[in-house]
């Protein structure tokens, strides 16, 4: 395909494909999906605990952990051992991260920061709160710039 080479597809042998193709083939019942290494109860428990312990954001095993979890659990839960536990663990980690993000967004706005570094955030998290945050910041900016006194406009006498 345009974006790279695929295959070779040999029966019984695992092959790496883009997620969109994997889901499509699974839906057509042409394959079994192999979950990524980090999609394992012990590993995810470790991550969840670290996330709860630390104030900073834990580096996640995949920049697409949320999307992969949702897709794989939706379409291929039969290929994932302990799927329910995995679902809960990822959700708990997500909730903790989003709560931290909300707090830090709040403090960003309050302290009128001009810049923030967000290395360990995944795109899903950024885009979940991002639009709200940027629009709120824009509003704040508009309100602040309007604090400048208006240029001599004469008021009307009634």
């Amino acid at each position: 395909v345009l974006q790279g080479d695929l295959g070779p597809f040999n029966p019984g042998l695992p092959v790496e494909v883009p997620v969109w193709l994997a889901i499509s083939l699974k839906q057509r019942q042409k394959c079994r999906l192999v979950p990524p290494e980090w999609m394992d109860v012990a590993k995810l428990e470790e991550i969840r605990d670290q996330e709860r312990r630390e104030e900073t954001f834990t580096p996640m095993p995949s920049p697409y952990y949320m999307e992969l979890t949702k897709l794989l659990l939706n379409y291929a839960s039969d290929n994932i051992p302990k799927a329910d536990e995995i679902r809960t663990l990822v959700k708990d980690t997500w909730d903790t991260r989003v709560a931290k993000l909300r707090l830090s967004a709040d403090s960003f706005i309050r302290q009128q920061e001009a810049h923030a570094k967000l290395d360990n955030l995944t795109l899903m998290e950024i885009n979940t709160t991002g639009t709200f945050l940027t629009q709120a910041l824009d509003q704040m900016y508009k309100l602040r710039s309007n604090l400048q006194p208006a240029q001599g406009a004469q008021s009307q006498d009634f």
Partner: protein
Amino acid sequence: DSDEGSEELVLTPAQLIRSLEQAWLNEKFAPELLESKPEIIECVVEQLDHMEANLKRAKKGDLKVSVHRMEIERIRYVLSSYLRCRLVKIEKFFPHVLEKEKSRAEGEPSILSPEEFAFAKEYMANTETYLKNVALKHMPPNLQKVSLLKSVPKPNLDSFVFLRVLERQENILVEPETDEQREYTIDLEEGSQHLIRYKTIAPLVASGAVQLI
């Protein structure tokens, strides 16, 4: 950086699609209309047409055919989304977009493709006619002019954007938000992600040093 004469960029198809995705995301998240990328669009359309032609000739029902078809659909989606995003901005900021294009210096890249330019001009003419017929011609004679350039809001270049650094940058100036703060500089490490005002980093988006996310 750019030299005289033709700049022939030879990209692999994978790199081409990657460029399209980058242009798409930048356009989506940037508050203003960005440079038009006719080379990318032309090449992508060419590749898609080429693929479609191949598929027409291929055996039906082959797995390969459906995989290629899916990929084509995905790329078409990105391309459409990118072009539509640009049209939305053109309609939103039309007087400013046209003004910028008219006052562009010789060597500077264009922000409108020829088709987009024609569209913008027509949109402006239609809007002017509409306003005149619906309201302006019924106003007292001294109020019949409206300056679209003054009344249509400009893009807010001070909006905050999220970005990922592709090429390391040093000493980017961060302007203070309040009078009590002072300006400071930051270095942008490759692979790091930031939240910052668009205005400061606009040239970095244009040069491809950062990617909006």
